[in-house]
Every structure is written in C-alpha cells, then in structure tokens.
C-alpha cells in the first residue's frame, strides 16, 4: 500500500489504464469517441468527477459503515456529476448539447465507483486525488486517441468542433485531409469504435511486449516436449 505517487500516476495513465486494461467505462468510451473534441470533453468531465469523488470518498472513508458504503458513494458521485453537468450547461453549452445524455451517464461509469471502492476508500486524501486525476487523464487520453483516429479516418478532419470547447478563436484549428478525401463512414459508426478500441488494446500490448524485452530464458521454462 506504500506505493509512491509515481506508481499511482503510471498505473492510471498506462499499466492500469481503465479503458485499455480494465475495460471499464466502455459505454461512453465507444459512444462518444467519434471526434477528438467530443472525446476530450467527456474525458475531462469524467476526470473532474473522478478527482472530486475520490477526494470526498477518501475524506469520509473512516466514518461510513461498510454496509452502506456503495449507496453513499453513488450519492457522492451523482452530486458531482450534477455539478459538472450544470457547469457544462452554463459555460460549454454547445459541447453540452453534443454530448447529451452521456454527461448524466457519467454516474454509471464503472471506473468512478470502481476507483472509489478500490482505491479512495482505502487511501488518504492526497493519494486519492492523484489517483483520480491520473486515472481520469488515462481515460481521457484513450478517448482522445480513439476519437481523433475515428474522426480522421471517418470524415478526414481533426479538431472538428473545437470552438465548442475553446471558444470562437479555435474555429481555425480544424484540420482536413483535403476536400477529395471521401471519408470511410464505418469508422464513425459503432463498429468503428469497437475496431478502433481493439486496435488500441493490441497496440498497447505490443508496446508492453517490446518494453519488457525478450523474456530471459529460465531453466525449466522450456516448453514441455509433447508426448
């Protein structure tokens, strides 16, 4: 339990990435990742909820009886989601309308209650905060990469709708692959989300394998001869 903060951060961003390793929170991940900006928006909203709920759960962890902890966690998460929803409605109204039902649905994102139960309820506040932020950013990164690649393949643009998030000045950020790019519609449709996520998981596994390097040959580790 005495892992350093560095471990918490790398766990959240990479080795225990909730989207690529735990495969949690797939519903919003698959549904909203059709453009980079949508992915970023939902990712940041989730990160905000995750950080605040982790901190609150950690604060009350010694006062809540284990029998009722789950309803309490859900109430905490729901109130933060409501807050985030109201804030987005007020300040990012365009994005709020695009993301629609998936903002209130953050309540049901398994990642959040999962971290509350598995980490925040057993750790002091600063550690819970770092965990919430890094898990949230890991989730956001996957959403952005998946959203960006689907947007690029599917409609040949990047940063489409950036003004919804960064104001009118960001309208010019939009990149296109040129007018003649026809757009492979499948990437935007739901099957594209599944294939994209599968590809990302495969890529992560390949990178992990490369990082680990060739497995050192250990005596007795030889494949048993088939009889």
């Amino acid at each position, binding site marked *: 339990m005495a892992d350093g903060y560095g471990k918490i951060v790398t766990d959240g961003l990479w080795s225990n990435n909730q989207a690529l390793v735990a495969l949690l929170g797939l519903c919003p991940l698959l549904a909203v990742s059709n453009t980079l900006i949508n992915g970023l928006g939902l990712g940041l909203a989730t990160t905000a909820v995750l950080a605040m709920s982790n901190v609150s759960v950690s604060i009350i962890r010694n006062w809540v009886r284990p029998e009722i902890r789950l309803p309490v966690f859900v109430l905490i998460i729901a109130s933060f989601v409501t807050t985030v929803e109201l804030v987005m409605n007020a300040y990012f109204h365009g994005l709020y309308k695009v993301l629609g039902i998936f903002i209130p649905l953050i309540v049901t994102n398994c990642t959040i209650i999962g971290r509350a139960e598995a980490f925040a309820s057993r750790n002091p506040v600063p550690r819970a905060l770092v965990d919430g932020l890094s898990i949230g950013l890991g989730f956001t990164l996957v959403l952005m990469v998946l959203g960006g690649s689907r947007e690029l393949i599917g409609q040949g643009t990047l940063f489409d709708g950036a003004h919804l998030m960064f104001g009118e000045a960001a309208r010019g950020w939009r990149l296109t692959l040129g007018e003649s790019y*026809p*757009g*492979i*519609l*499948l990437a935007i*449709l739901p099957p594209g989300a599944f*294939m994209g996520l599968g590809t990302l998981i495969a890529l992560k596994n390949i990178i992990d394998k490369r990082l680990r390097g060739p497995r050192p040959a250990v005596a007795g580790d030889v494949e048993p001869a088939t009889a």
Partner: protein
Amino acid sequence: MNKLEISISSPHLSGPQSVTRVMALVLLALVPGTLALLWYFGWGVIINIALAVGSAVVAEAIVLRLRGRAVADTLLDLSAVVTGWLLALALPPLLPWWQTVLGSVFAIVIVKQLYGGIGFNPFNPAMAGYVLLLVSFPVTMTRWLAPEVITGQALSFADSLHIIFAGLPPAGQTWDVVSSATPLDLMRSELSQNHMISEIRSSPLWGDYGGRGWEWVGNWFLLGGLFLIWQRVISWRIPVAMLGSLLLVAGLFWAIDHETHPFPAFHLFSGGAILGAFFIATDPVSACTTPRGQLVYGALIGLFVFIIRTWGGYPDAVAFSVLLMNMAAPTIDYYTQPRIFGQRSGSDG
C-alpha cells in the same frame, strides 16, 4: 514442427477433400456466372476481380508472414483467391480501384486473419468486406452500370481501366448517363412512390423476370452451383432451403397483393440471391454444419433476404442476411446436433 500423425477411426470413408481442391472447384464453378457478368457489364468486372484477388492474396501473404505462419502453403489453398473473387462479383463494375482494394484487404486482414485465418473466421470475409464498402461508400457502391443490352454501347477495356483508376465518369458523360439503378433499387424506389408493379414492369428496363440482362446472370451462377452440388463440394441443403424460403415468403405476399409485392421469380433472379445461395451462404467455415442446422440456416437467410429487401433500408440483402445468420450459426448447430445412434431423444448431452 512434426507433421501430426492422424489415425482415422472407422468408418473408413474416403478422405475429406483438400481445401485446395474445393476452392479450385468453386473457382471453376464461378466461371460461367463471371462470363455472364462480363458479357452484360463489360470489362470492369474483370478489372475488379484482378484488383480484389490481387490485393487479397498480397494481404494474406503479409499477414501470414507477420503471424509467423507458412506463407506458401496457405496461399496455395486458394481461399484468398475465392474471397477476392466473390467480393469482386458483388461490387459495381466501375467502383474506384482503392475501394475494391480496401474491401478486399479488410475481408482478409480483419475478418479472416485476425480471427485466426482459414477455418476460424465467424463471418464470411467476402460479405463482410462488401458490407464495409456498402456502409462506408453508399454513393459509389450503388452506382451500377446499365447492362450493355440496354445501352447498346460497350466501354472499351482502356476506358474501363481509366474510369476505375481516375474515378471520373467516361469522357463527355456524367455518372447519371452511364449508371443505372439495379432492378431491386428501381423496384424499391418505384414502389415507394406508390407505383403499381404492372406499371413498373412496362418500363423498357424490364425483362421477363427482372431487369433486362440482370435476370440471366443468375442462371449461370445456378449452373455453377449445381456443378458444386454434383461434385459434393456443397450440400444441397443450404441453397435449397434459402431459395425455397425466399420463394415461399415472396409467393405468399405476392398472392396477397401482386401489385405491391413483386412476383417471386423477381426475388430469385435479382440481386445476389442465386450467387449468395450457392457460393456465399454455403461457405464451409461460417455456415452451419449439421444437416438440420443447414436447413434452418438457409431458410432463415431466405426469410431475412425478403424482410430486408421489402422493409429494410438497403435494396439488396443477401450480404446482411448471411452475416446475421453467420452470427447465429453456432447456436443453430448446438441445437441441431444429430442424435448419436442408440441415444434416446430428450436425453441431455
């Protein structure tokens, strides 16, 4: 790695046919239908086949190499050639070249090899490639040529090549002039405007059973299909069940109202029904394997073809129906296991 020694227990029937032989026979059986398509729709058909087969074989070789499998052995089983060929037959003759290549590569890499290669793919690769293209590029994928018997003019080989690679309509013409709706498409759009079938059929585009030209292509595929049944490459069950149920349902609706539902033969001789019944639904990997299961599987494909053609969002439905039933095939197989001799019915396991 040592080759596995297989001792086959009784009954000592003649050994199974090799994959290469089966695939070669399928290719042979495709020749008449392919020639018919060539006759009616011009050189684009051949160029499509070359593109699709070429890219399928190259994609298969690359993936096999990446997976560390024997490349030459697997390529020689000809299954990639059959996949590319079937896909090409389903595509409009003047599809831009890169779309053909994309569909073919997707079929081989994603649908076949990522699931483990030949024998492990749950979906028919050619049809999955076709659906990818249909869903992604609705404009070019529904841009069929009118059969040459109607237009009376044929595109030269060089013209077809130019159109496919440049993606532009023939010089001095627009796509609207060259292309024409498929009979299924035409029927669908006319019916949606509340036209009577007798009116629709008076159009010069119509022959005896379906669109002029179109209606005869199916016969040549039928010939190839019968050859495959005779050679015992495929069983009669899936094609008969599929075409039978399509005829039955179509006949039923036609009997109720023959001005808003096309006559059954139209369903049979339009679109991919015959090609699908003999060459695609019978794919030995993704279809059902038990005798009763094959009947159920084929019949449901026929039913889905009718449902999707009549009430669905796309004019033809063979690809979607086959993929849907591919998904159901393991379950159907599970419930139609033949009883072991001597086992009482109802006993579990």
